[in-house]
């Protein structure tokens, strides 16, 4: 995980994080004081209260922590996955695992991040790690 330059967008961390995603870059934060990883992005560290958090690019690898399949009628787009992913840096986020049917996504499964453009906005999704044989 290496420190990266600030996304060019002005304003708060929500806008900066989104601007990076819109450019295809997924960034998390690391506290300049306690060094812990922080996600979702904040203006202060939720662990120690420090005000300076650096943007860092995560390795992108993680593990499925919890999983559900939201059932939806086929005409509305069909069932889809919602998962919580623990990044290797030690933070958790909501996302979805793509590339396999949602019913095949398992807790503990290794996944890797990918930024997709969805409705004009960058969004982080995850794919099963290919070496573990789950890739479609």
């Amino acid at each position, binding site marked *: 995980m290496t420190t990266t330059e600030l996304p060019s967008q002005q304003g708060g961390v929500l806008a900066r994080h989104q601007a990076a995603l819109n450019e295809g870059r997924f960034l998390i934060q690391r506290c300049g004081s306690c060094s812990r990883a922080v996600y979702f992005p904040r203006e202060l560290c939720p662990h120690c209260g420090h005000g300076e958090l650096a943007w860092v690019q995560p390795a992108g690898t993680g593990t499925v922590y919890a999983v*559900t399949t939201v059932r939806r009628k086929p005409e509305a787009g069909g069932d*889809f996955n919602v998962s919580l992913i623990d990044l290797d840096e030690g933070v958790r986020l*909501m*996302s979805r695992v793509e590339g396999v049917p949602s019913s095949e996504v398992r807790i503990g499964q290794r996944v890797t991040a990918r930024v997709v453009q969805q409705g004009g906005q960058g969004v982080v999704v995850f794919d099963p790690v290919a070496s573990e044989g789950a890739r479609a």
Partner: protein
Amino acid sequence: MNELKALRGSAAIAGVATFGCGEAPGYSDMELLANAARAAVADAGLKMSDIDGLCTASGGATMWAMPVVEYLGIRPSYIDSTMIGGSSFIAHLLPAMQALQSGQCNAVLVCYGSAQRSATFGRREVVASRRFLDPQPYESPYEPMQPLSAYALAASRHMHDFGTTRRQLAEVAVAARAWAQRNPEAFMREPLSIDDVLGARMVCDPLTVRDSCLVTDGGGAYVLVRADRARDLPRTPVYVLGNGTAVWNRQISSMHDLTVTAARDSGRAAFAMAGLAPKDIDVVQLYDAFTINVLLFLEDLGFCAKGEGGAFVEGGAIGPGGRLPVNTNGGGLSCVHPGMYGIFALIEAVRQLRGDGGERQVAGVKTAIAHGNGGTLSSQSTAVLGLAETL
């Protein structure tokens, strides 16, 4: 904590009421609230003009206390409109006890009403408006069907970590229905079997529609007064022995461990204030928005060890005649759930303590727990209640 312990039993619930539970077509939120409020004040043997403290919250209106004050025609010297979801009306207890003890007010009305089932402003509109009014920008791109998806995620983790089964979750729904069959106020009273729950429409794996709470209309209210005054009022006083509230997160993705809720802290605080332990509790009312809630709260409140909730509820153990009576009105799963259920859990605890439970009355109830949950396992508030002999 010593000062909180001094508040133990300092206030009592003197009146309770519900109104329009189930379907109340043509009623507004305020009308349901007002009818419940009027009936609760009458139940306490008071007049609306005696009410000088107000606690209320709304799932929609952010300034809800003001229209309620206006509608009821009261001039409260104490107002608490803390809104932390469905647990709010249990979390309102401790600040109200402090206000009563300080003399800031003398009779607090806690009240809620929602026409969620019959309202024309439906789920689609609520979801759309919340994107702007209450944004969760790090979750909404993934379109979780909230609140259901959050609880489904928690259930998935509980099953993974502890081997909890869908059949054990179904036990919770079946027990709730068995209680509801003994409660004429309950909305769903037809028989429900484990297989019915397992075969019900899946909504968010592993939760089916029968693992999920009702969407009903309803109003609920209670009146809290100082203990010395409660003894002069007509109904059996139900003393507040302890109350604790805890919030650790809002979003499910920010929850540290999906199998451990802030009920661990709220319960610990409430039991410490009460000087009681789970083994001392006769009836348990838990906010069962989804079946997984009951397992989590039984564990976090200390009725069983972490991970053993599934085994604890097996074999009808929390239903009528079981080892621990839980959600004796039928709960949010089978009795009533108009957006926020917490006040109804507390009202059922009071009814059991008074012996007003009719066919569902548990014999010899002297202590009860009412536990509220809010958001997506986000807020937790626990109340320990008891009769005079527990003071």
